């Protein structure tokens, strides 16, 4: 198939590399680069070096589509290591399906991407819904009978979280006293937090991504309230803790990749130091790990096809290989009718002094 | 039938020298429309020079060139030179020209529509001190009592004639050395026209102001002017001292409205034909 020469194998990815979402895209991109550098250093696949073409879509759907067409049609990459955001991935679905190119989807693992398995699309990670479900169950156990507040974004991300809370409600007693949706891009959360205060909320689900969570926690600090605040993984990066300041201490989080401060995380940073520049290492965060893990899974499959490097074989291997150990998250594996790695999640808490998260016991 | 006086020899006040001197100017719009072609004229210090000509002759274009505002309409002085007070201003910036005392009353009034009458006048004397400003304002208000009545009104709502008064008054506020007027009497009542011309006459005597006048009201203009140029189709076709021009039969017929050959003004009712085309084109 396309993208393979005697000396090279081309891979492609589409990420938001500019603008605010670049925070996640760039880190992710580093993870992919790291995985490639690691194999290349070990001689590549069947003597072929791996090369990555990264396209920027700035988180704009039409550009995602354009970039994909370019990667598949013009650059003729062999496989896709990643697709940006959830909405973008959904929009890209028909094109990828039609092309038949093996594609990993490590960001925005939405159910529609895997519930009806597509032969060539492999979703790595955990769904927002399930993550929220687990987080809510944990908080319900930890804070029985407390009043909850929920602030969510008015898009499919927020919707997925809402569903997770619903699922948890069915299993545990959760008393939501305040619930609201905000429009994406909102910067000022004063009125929302006032209502949180007014409603006497003791457990707050801050369902923003990055800036929104920062704003919410700072606002709570300003109002002098200190509910248990739970944030979600898209914003689980050190920069957020730093930007919030001391008020970030003790935030709850949930994730399916290991925290940087854990042993696995430390090992990962060591690995990164070996292949990435200093400046790049500074930007390593959880997205670097997801990028690394999913790419590594792809590479394992491709290695299995070294002589017969075709889409068919790669897809075959991806689904039959035993779960791949990546070191940064639970082993990743798929099955005949399973295109979703369904990685288990961990609940964790933030520490401002070290700008890190550690798992709760 | 008409004898063209050599355009380079306006010598009414030769002893004073030319304050404004245009030589062989060619002006082109949009790189394509030639509006002025090979025009030479000079305005001696202290004189009143009138420029007459039919619609589209290029009079306003010439004034725009003199004040450096041609480029705003994609026009360009492509050949020739314009000298003012011994300085080449053919391509100078408007501000620079204005600061040398050359002020234009532009065609179409061009008031600052959302400023009041008084603020418009203020802009005219933008570079003067507060005391001078007061003096000049009262001078303008004396000249146009109507404006005094309306001084706090937004100028955009004035009647056409009132606006013209503001435009002329605003230029006078600058106490120019050379005042260029593009059809100052446009839309004014006879009474006001008379007073404007009286003022112009007074200014040139009292303040030794030089005046370059573009006018359609030929009889008024010729009366006050020392020297007259006539333009047609972008060229100067006739020029000469005012008295001489007044006695020219063609000028009498085409610009003053006398019936051909005789000294009587003909009635507009008696005009039977339109087709009289450019006579002076060489």
């Amino acid at each position: 198939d396309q993208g393979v020469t005697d000396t090279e194998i081309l891979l492609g990815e589409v990420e938001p590399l500019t603008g605010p979402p670049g925070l996640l895209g760039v880190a992710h991109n580093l993870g992919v680069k790291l995985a490639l550098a690691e194999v290349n250093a070990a001689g590549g696949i069947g003597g072929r070096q791996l090369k990555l073409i990264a396209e920027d879509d700035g988180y704009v759907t039409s550009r995602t589509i354009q970039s994909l067409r370019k990667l598949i049609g013009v650059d003729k990459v062999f496989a896709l290591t990643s697709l940006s955001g959830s909405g973008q991935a959904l929009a890209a679905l028909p094109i990828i399906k039609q092309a038949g190119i093996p594609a990993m989807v490590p960001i925005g693992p939405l159910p529609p991407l895997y519930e009806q398995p597509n032969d060539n699309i492999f979703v790595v990670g955990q769904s927002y819904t399930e993550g929220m479900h687990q987080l809510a169950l944990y908080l319900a156990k930890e804070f029985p009978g407390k009043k909850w507040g929920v602030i969510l974004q008015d898009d499919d991300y927020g919707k997925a979280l809402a569903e997770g809370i619903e699922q948890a409600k069915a299993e545990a007693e959760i008393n939501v006293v305040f619930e609201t949706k905000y429009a994406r891009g909102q910067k000022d959360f004063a009125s929302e937090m006032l209502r949180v205060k007014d409603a006497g909320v003791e457990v707050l689900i801050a369902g923003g991504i990055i800036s929104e969570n920062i704003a919410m926690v700072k606002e709570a600090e300003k109002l002098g309230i200190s509910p248990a605040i739970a944030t979600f993984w898209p914003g689980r990066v050190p920069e957020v803790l730093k930007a919030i300041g001391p008020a970030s201490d003790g935030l709850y989080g949930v994730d399916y990749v290991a925290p940087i401060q854990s042993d696995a995380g430390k090992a990962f940073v060591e690995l990164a130091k070996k292949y990435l520049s200093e400046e790049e290492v500074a930007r390593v965060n959880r997205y670097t790990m997801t990028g690394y893990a999913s790419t590594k899974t792809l590479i394992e499959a491709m290695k299995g096809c070294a002589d017969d490097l075709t889409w068919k074989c790669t897809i075959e291997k991806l689904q039959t290989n035993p779960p791949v150990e990546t070191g940064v998250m639970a082993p990743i594996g798929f099955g005949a009718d399973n295109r979703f790695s369904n990685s288990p999640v961990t609940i964790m808490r933030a520490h401002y002094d070290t700008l890190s998260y550690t798992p709760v016991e | 039938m008409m004898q063209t006086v050599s355009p380079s020899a306006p010598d009414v006040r030769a002893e004073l020298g030319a304050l404004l001197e245009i030589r062989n100017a060619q002006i082109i719009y949009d790189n394509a429309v030639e509006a002025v072609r090979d025009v030479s004229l000079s305005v001696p210090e202290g004189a009143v020079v009138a420029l007459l000509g039919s619609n589209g002759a290029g009079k306003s274009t010439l004034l725009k060139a003199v004040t450096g505002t041609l480029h705003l309409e994609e026009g360009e002085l492509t050949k020739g030179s314009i000298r003012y007070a011994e300085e080449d201003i053919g391509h100078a910036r408007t501000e620079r020209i204005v600061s040398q005392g050359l002020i234009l009353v532009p065609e179409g009034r061009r008031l600052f529509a959302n400023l009041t009458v008084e603020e418009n006048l203020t802009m005219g004397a933008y570079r003067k001190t507060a005391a001078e400003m007061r003096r000049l304002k009262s001078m303008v208000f004396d000249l146009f009592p109507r404006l005094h009545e309306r001084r706090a009104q937004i100028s955009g709502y004035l009647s056409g004639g009132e606006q013209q008064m503001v435009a002329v008054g605003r230029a006078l506020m600058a106490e120019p050395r050379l005042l260029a007027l593009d059809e100052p009497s446009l839309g004014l009542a006879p009474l006001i026209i008379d007073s404007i011309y009286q003022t112009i006459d007074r200014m040139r005597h009292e303040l030794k102001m030089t005046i370059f006048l573009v006018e359609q009201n030929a009889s008024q203009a010729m009366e006050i002017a020392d020297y007259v140029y006539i333009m047609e189709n972008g060229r100067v076709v006739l020029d000469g001292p005012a008295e001489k021009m007044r006695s020219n039969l063609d000028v009498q017929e085409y610009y003053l409205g006398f019936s051909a050959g005789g000294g009587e003004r003909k009635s507009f009712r008696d005009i039977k034909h339109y087709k009289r085309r450019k006579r002076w084109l060489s």
Partner: protein
Amino acid sequence: MRSGYYKETIVEHINLTDSTLQRVWIAIGLIVVVAAPFYFDFYGLSLLTLMMITAIGAMGLNVLTGWTGLISLGQTAFMVLGAYAYAITTESWGWPPLAGFLLAGIVPALASVLVGVPSLRLTGLYLAITTLASAFIVNHLVLEFDGLTNGSSGIFVNRPTVLGFAFDSDARFYYLTAGAGLLTILACLNLRRSRVGRALIAIRDNDNAARVMGIDLRTYKLYAFMASSFIVGIAGALYGIFLSFVTVDGFPFLLAIEALAILIVGGMGSIAGAILGTIFMVGLPEVTSFVFSLLGDGARDVLSTSAHEIKGLLYGLVIILFLKLQPHGLMGLWQDAKRVWTLWPLKY
């Protein structure tokens, strides 16, 4: 050297073409459009398709902003409505695509009447803001009525089959957009030379005088809104099909700014300008990417993650430089060129 053609009848004045030469050029243009799929690859073709769709949208905005002088920052709202009208009728309700397209024009056109009403009182940027507001409100409503619109999850759309002909491949879909593009051009040209087009221009240049000439400002401003929204709505539907997925995210606010930019760069009020502007603005990122790729792998690695920012920088710079050199836009450039051509060798 051609300097104009002598015309003997009124009909000759009204016709769109006035010479064989012109007709030959048009024929060449058509052949290029038809032949494009054979020369362009997958990506190039999708770029062309995108240009076609964008050009339709730009021509639509031109009716409103270029001709009638009503600045709108809200035409994305009508794209969204068009796209949803199409997606809902064809995908959710299973109507035939032709009906879907029709509704993709009619629904925005009707909605635009609501947005257009303020235009009877407002001018310039004041109107621009109310149109911007309508864009936000439409987005809000789309998310609110998720029973119909599927909210933020959006609706998938398939390539259409019109009158038994399936526009399912990239090349076929390109022809569909090219066809729609040509129809739009024709419709706009016809409008422009009709009493309606003249009335719109009259309103832009001098609304009071237009009224004295018997033009009902209310009706015609609303006509402008409706015609514009109809065209923009069709563009929205095509864009939805192009993306194969309709969500509000697919139509960000920046699109409205970009559309305005296309008209300015092309030359406000001109149909050809809208098309040239589209080619320029849609093509520019490709050109900057290409220039960047010429820098070679070495430079690319050094700049690594900055590459995209540098592209952005380049993009902005090119726009500024272009306007500095050619403030009247591409149409200005074209007219200058034409003048040189017809007047040569005598300059004036």
